C-alpha cells in the first residue's frame, strides 16, 4: 500500500482562533515562554500499490476538498506502507 500523510494549516494571514485559545490554555498551565500555537489537520490516505499519477491526484484532492486554498496551505508525503 502507499500511505499519504497530508498536513493542512491556516495561512499565516488568517487568524487561528483555535490556536490562540490553545495557546492561552498552555500559558495558564504555567508554560510562559510559548510564542505561538498553530492548529491544523492531519489526514492519512491509503492507496493501491500500483496507483499511477498519485502525486498529481493527491494534489488535486487537497485543492478540491482537504484544503481551502483561500485560507489554508497543505503539504503531503508519500511513503510505502507495509
Amino acid at each position: 500500500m502507499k500511505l499519504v500523510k497530508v498536513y493542512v494549516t491556516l495561512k499565516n494571514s488568517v487568524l487561528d482562533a483555535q490556536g490562540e485559545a490553545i495557546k492561552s490554555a498552555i500559558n495558564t498551565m504555567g508554560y510562559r515562554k510559548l510564542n505561538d500555537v498553530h492548529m491544523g489537520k492531519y489526514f492519512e490516505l491509503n492507496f493501491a500499490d500500483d496507483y499511477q499519477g498519485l502525486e498529481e491526484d493527491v494534489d488535486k484532492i487537497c485543492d478540491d476538498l482537504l484544503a481551502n486554498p483561500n485560507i489554508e496551505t497543505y503539504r503531503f508525503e508519500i511513503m510505502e506502507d507495509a
Partner: protein
Amino acid sequence: MKFAVVNFPGSNCDMDLYYAIRDGINEQVELVDYRATSLDGFDGVLIPGGFSYGDYLRSGAIAVHAPIVKEIIRFANDGKIVLGICNGFQILTELGLLPGALVRNEKGRFICETVELEVVNTQTPFTNEYQANETIKVPVAHGEGRYYCDNETLSQLEENEQIVFRYKNNINGSVALIAGVTNKQKNVLGMMPHPERALEEIVGSNDGLNLFQSIINNQVRVNN
C-alpha cells in the same frame, strides 16, 4: 415565483426558509433533496443554514460534492437567483460561486443574537426594497462566520459593489465588517445573518421580509 430550498443532511433552517416563502411572501416553494439532479421549473434556489455533514472537515466543504450542486452552479451561471444563508453562505464560498471564505469567529465563541446590519448596496435583486444605508435588525447564529478574503479580493468586492451587508459592530472579526456579499453579476448572495428568522415583529424584527420581497420585485422588473 417558485423557489427550491435545498436540503442537505444536517441542514436545520430549511423549514424556516420554506415558511418565509410560503407565508412571508406567499410564493411557491418546495424542498429539494441534495441527491436530486435537476432544478428545472424553479426560479430561485435557497440554501439554508445548519450544519451540513456535521461541519466535518470545514463548514460547507463536503456539501460541495453533493449531486444537486452541479445544478446549483448551472443555475447561478444562468443568472438565476441563488441565496445562501449562514451554512448556505459557507457552501457558496466553498463552491467558488462567491469569493472569500468563512472561518472561526475571532473570539472562538458561537454567537447567537440579533445584530444591526447596514444595507450597503440597495441595487441588487435582494435589497431593492431597503433604503440606502438603512440599518436593519437580523439574528445571527454562527461559530464560523468570520468573513475572510485577501486585500486584492476586498478591493474587487468594493470596486464592483459586491458588499451588500455590513455589521454595524464588529461581532466576529470579519474583514471590513462584511456580513453578506454577492457575485459580480449580483444574482448570487451569501450572508451569515438569518433574514428568514426576522419576518414578524413578535419575534423581535420583521426586517428580513424586505429581502424576500426584493427578490419578487426584481422578478417583476425583469419580466416587464
